[in-house]
């Protein structure tokens, strides 16, 4: 009996690698070109109905109403912070002041009634507004956990620039 291709038994079959490498490199270049490092983003939620919200009667409020005002110079740099009657000198001091007012050791829901109205000069740069919102809305523990402080944040009505 004749064995077919008996003479080719030890022959090595070679794949054509060139087209595959071409495509693979094209894919690689595509992914490298479209790659963009995007940092994580988060939101601060504020609820502001069009009608001016009615403040709760004093007997229902666990915490006194808080008003925060941020002053700015002509460049939009923060020049002063006023929280009710006190004047914290930094956002860190503001955060500590808020912690004193609403406390951090209350159980869930203990700070639900705490509310703050934030006002600021028209020219104040938005990064300082977010800095103040950060300082009043929570604090980070040394373990990296976030402790919420004031969740009800609203802005006052804007004043037109002079």
């Amino acid at each position, binding site marked *: 009996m004749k064995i077919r291709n008996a003479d080719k038994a030890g022959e090595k079959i070679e794949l054509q690698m060139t087209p595959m490498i071409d495509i693979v490199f094209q894919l690689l270049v595509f992914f490298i070109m479209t790659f963009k490092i995007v940092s994580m983003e988060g*939101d*601060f939620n*504020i609820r502001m109905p*069009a009608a001016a919200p009615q403040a709760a009667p004093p007997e229902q409020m666990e915490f006194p109403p808080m008003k925060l005002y941020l002053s700015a110079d002509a460049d939009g740099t923060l020049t002063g912070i006023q929280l009710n009657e006190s004047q914290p000198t930094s956002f860190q001091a503001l955060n500590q002041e808020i912690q004193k007012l609403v406390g951090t050791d209350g159980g869930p829901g203990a700070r639900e009634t705490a509310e703050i109205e934030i006002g600021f000069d028209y020219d104040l740069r*938005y990064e300082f507004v977010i800095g103040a919102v950060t300082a009043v809305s929570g604090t980070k523990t040394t373990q990296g956990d976030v402790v919420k402080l004031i969740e009800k944040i609203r802005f006052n*009505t804007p004043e037109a620039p002079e």
Partner: protein
Amino acid sequence: MRLAKKHDSSILEGDLTPMIDMTFQLIAFFMVLINFTQSESNDKVQLPDSELAKPPESVLENYRIIHLAEDGTAVMGTKQEHYKGLRTTLDLQYREIQYSGDEPALTTIVIRAHKNAKGGMVQELIQICQEAGFESFALRAEENVNSGFKYISPVPAGG
């Protein structure tokens, strides 16, 4: 004299396996990390950073994004105009949300404002949205990995 073993006249081929291994690993790396949520960002907007800005645990269901550039240009969807002229676009969005059966008051307006934009512009933008019937807002910030408050007042304590 001993002669070296004579090879065949076939072409010399390098071993491609390690290179292909590495290339596939690189492709896998970039494929996993590729970000398809580019539509939420805008080149004109550089967000302020905050140590408490963490990605939300639950994804917002009904939301509209407004980008506010430093010069007051607002971008909402495909519309780009000054933020003071955004009312018409907001009214259209309001009707679109109503038509789709959702509650506009429960739709969150995500504000992505440039960190150097004037705070008053953001206030006015919120007011325009309120006049259009929106009530829920989210101020977007970038996560700051270096925790701590940035602003230290030039005014000394008690001064």
